[in-house]
């Protein structure tokens, strides 16, 4: 900057726009901005011309028209008399539903596999390595196709569960104490029923079951009380140095109220039973959902296992040794020293795996599960012929989901970041 003050002031010359570092970045930015805008204008202009040629316009009013098609799995009430917007919402909820269940299952499976892969047991370690390598290196589409093929080709029809009067035996038997039945059309699982049901509130979006609301309230309340209990224990520990024993109180507080509400409402599980040609009583989950969920879970679990393993290995052995030197037991060493540090390494890539799973759930197209792509980007698109609007809307929704998740991740990262210097 000293040379700048030494230079004789000869007023502004045009060449300064290129050769003077003070102005150059501005020049470049304006130049790039013009090019990008010109490119965008070119695309928009082409689109308008093409739409004119086809006699189409660009508007989203088709969303309020009658959809006229049925959706196999609907978590909110929907009939084919509802609008395309409602169908889109059903699809979006299906996408989120399979993603959430997939993330939960993949996390559980991934953590188990990642920890077992670190185990000193030679055989188990090798088996887990084989699992991880096998699932990581083969496309997820293959795993989804394998799952759907297994469910449709290798399982019997529902009527195979019928007891043959001649032999007194059924062709197939249910698993898990006669509560789950795999058939080539659906998987029958038990359903929750309440004898003294509180009913439901009808909202425009969906009916909210008061039973589950009561259970959720009980759970939230007991979590809050439990946090107060732990905070109290921390205070006692800081004041006296002795930590009161709280684990059984925590267990009681966490489980008793929820169970009490469940029992008070007369809640119980109803196992599916074969009536005629079909299972009734329980819930029949479509094979498309089960296959998509299982495929995504198995595939993502392999990645999560690697993340967990890397996170645990990233904590240097000195930390464990230092904790032992302080006299901490292995259990507490894990909980107070290793895990908090490992989580800082594990969580960011873990959340990006959740993001990947959510995006991969669009592979529902391979099994015919009606997710967002199946409704908005599938039947709605084909029926209305509005591919431009439908695909743009679909991309925006996926983008919103992704940005929400990565925004949450950024909040987490800034909270757990090491405070350096």
């Amino acid at each position, binding site marked *: 900057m000293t040379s700048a003050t030494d230079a004789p002031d000869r007023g502004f010359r045009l060449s300064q726009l290129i050769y003077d570092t003070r102005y150059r970045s501005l020049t470049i930015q304006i130049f790039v901005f013009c090019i*990008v805008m010109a490119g965008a204008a070119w695309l928009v202009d082409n689109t308008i011309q*093409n739409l004119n040629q086809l006699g189409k316009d660009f508007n989203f009013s088709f969303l309020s028209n009658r959809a006229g098609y049925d959706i196999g799995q609907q978590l909110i009430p929907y009939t084919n008399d509802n609008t395309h917007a409602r169908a889109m919402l059903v699809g979006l909820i299906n996408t989120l539903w399979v993603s959430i269940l997939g993330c939960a299952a993949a996390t559980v499976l991934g953590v188990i596999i990642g920890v077992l892969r670190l185990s000193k047991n*030679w055989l188990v370690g090798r088996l887990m390595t084989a699992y991880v390598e096998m699932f990581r290196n083969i496309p997820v589409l293959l795993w989804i196709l394998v799952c759907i093929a297994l469910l449709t080709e290798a399982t019997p029809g529902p009527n195979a569960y019928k007891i043959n009067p001649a032999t007194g035996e059924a062709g197939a038997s249910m698993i898990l104490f006669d509560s789950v039945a795999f058939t080539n059309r659906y998987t029958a699982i038990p359903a929750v029923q309440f004898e003294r049901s509180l009913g439901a509130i009808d909202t425009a979006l969906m009916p909210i079951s008061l039973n589950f609301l009561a259970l959720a309230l009980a759970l939230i309340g007991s979590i809050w009380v439990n946090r107060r209990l732990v905070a109290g224990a921390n205070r006692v520990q800081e004041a006296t140095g002795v930590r009161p024993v709280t684990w059984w109180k925590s267990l009681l507080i966490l489980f008793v109220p929820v169970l009490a509400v469940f029992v008070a409402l007369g809640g119980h599980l109803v196992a599916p039973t074969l009536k005629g040609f079909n299972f009734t009583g329980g819930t029949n989950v479509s094979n498309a959902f089960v296959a998509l969920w299982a495929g995504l879970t198995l595939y993502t679990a392999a990645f999560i296992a690697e993340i967990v393993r890397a996170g645990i290995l990233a904590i240097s052995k000195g930390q464990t040794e230092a904790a032992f030197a302080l006299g901490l037991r292995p259990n507490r060493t894990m909980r107070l020293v290793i895990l908090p540090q490992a989580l800082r390494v594990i969580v960011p890539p873990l959340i990006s795996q959740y993001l990947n799973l959510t*995006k991969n759930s669009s592979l529902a197209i391979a099994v015919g599960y009606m997710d967002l792509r199946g409704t908005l980007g599938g039947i709605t698109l084909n029926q209305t012929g509005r591919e431009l609007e439908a695909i743009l809307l679909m991309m925006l929704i996926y983008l919103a989901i992704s940005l929400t998740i990565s925004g949450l991740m950024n909040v987490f990262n800034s909270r757990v970041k090491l405070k350096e210097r």
Partner: protein
Amino acid sequence: MSETHAQSTAFVRDTMLPQMEPPNQQSGAVKWLRENLFAGWFNTVLTLLGLAVVYWLVTHFYPWFRHGVWSANSMAECRTIIAERWGEGASGACWAVINERWHQFLFGFYPPELYWRPIAVFLGLFLAVAPVLFTQLPRQMLIFSLAFPLLAIWLLWGGSVWPIAMIAVGFGLGFALIKTLGGQSVLLGMAAGIVVPVLFWLYAVGPIDAVLTQALPIGLEPVASDRFGGFLLAITIGAGGIALSLPLGIILALGRQSDMFLIKSFSVMFIEFIRGVPLITLLFVASLLLNYFLPPGTNFDIILRVMILVTLFAAAYIAEVIRGGLAALPRGQYEAADALGLDYWRAQRLIILPQALKISIPGIVSTFIGMFKDTTLVTFVGLFDPLKGIPDFIRADFAWKGTYWEHFIFVGAIFFILNFSMSRYAMYLERKLKRDHR
């Protein structure tokens, strides 16, 4: 002192333990088993569970493999052969379908008499990638790497050699102009190096091409894009996408690291948008929307359209990998480049990028593995990928109706071998590049 000690510890030994015999020495298989499989009751339970899983897998799948039939003309024939050999009710693999149709898995519907062309391209790919991956090889080989993409396009799609040669001439022209004029003024060199080739391709190529094709009709038999399929298609899209996305990814990564606000925001917007949507929606854009965005009447090849979108997709991911490499470089490298008086592009070219790219190669390889796996999604825009498109086509033939697992195992094994070796290479590289300057 002793009182507090007695309070805080439950037990303090104050007598010596009696001497004991040294433990029996353990060695060999027994020691290994005891340490690795049966250390403690929990470990033993794990071992037994593992053994149970292995036993279950072997008893369920081994017979199916052992009963496999390699030569038959249809699924029904397979079943009769298995029933004859192994008794009624035995199940077995019908490998005959792979035996008869393996070429469709590898090449799709590419004309069989022209198989030498994709094979040559595949071998050439190794030759072209080798100098990039292994630094020990002579640097002159990079010239072949630069020429290879055009050569591959010509070999795969065939047709006259002259359009491809003209593209190469255009690149050569631009490079020569940048070299000669860049000495006087970087800006002039860059401008000339971009504008002249573009003008050349737009206006000069047509007439020259016509004349040369008349005078010297050198060419290969053309192959249309709808003949492509199987692993040929997957590798073409995957390798093409990565090769094209590298330069774009580098530019995006530099843009995202830039101090200029507008350039940074454009880069961030592009990268986050692409990374936020599933590849499948982008493929639908390629098949349904791209025609809207281009001038009316433009209509081109579906493979090219898919490749454009796959390139944009891969570029966003590559940009993030390279950004990691750029961020991993110590600040001192940037400052040293500035201190030497290098301008931005020279500093990037000579100091920053060589180091940053070297750090990013493992990440780029794993991005490529991901890309290669994702190429199977092209089946949903009507292309014949090896995982769904080709097996569905084969199953449509009545003779092979009902073959599922054979396809999955064959295709899965090829994917596994390719991806596993690539990930091992990435690990080898990571170890080699790990230079802890401490």
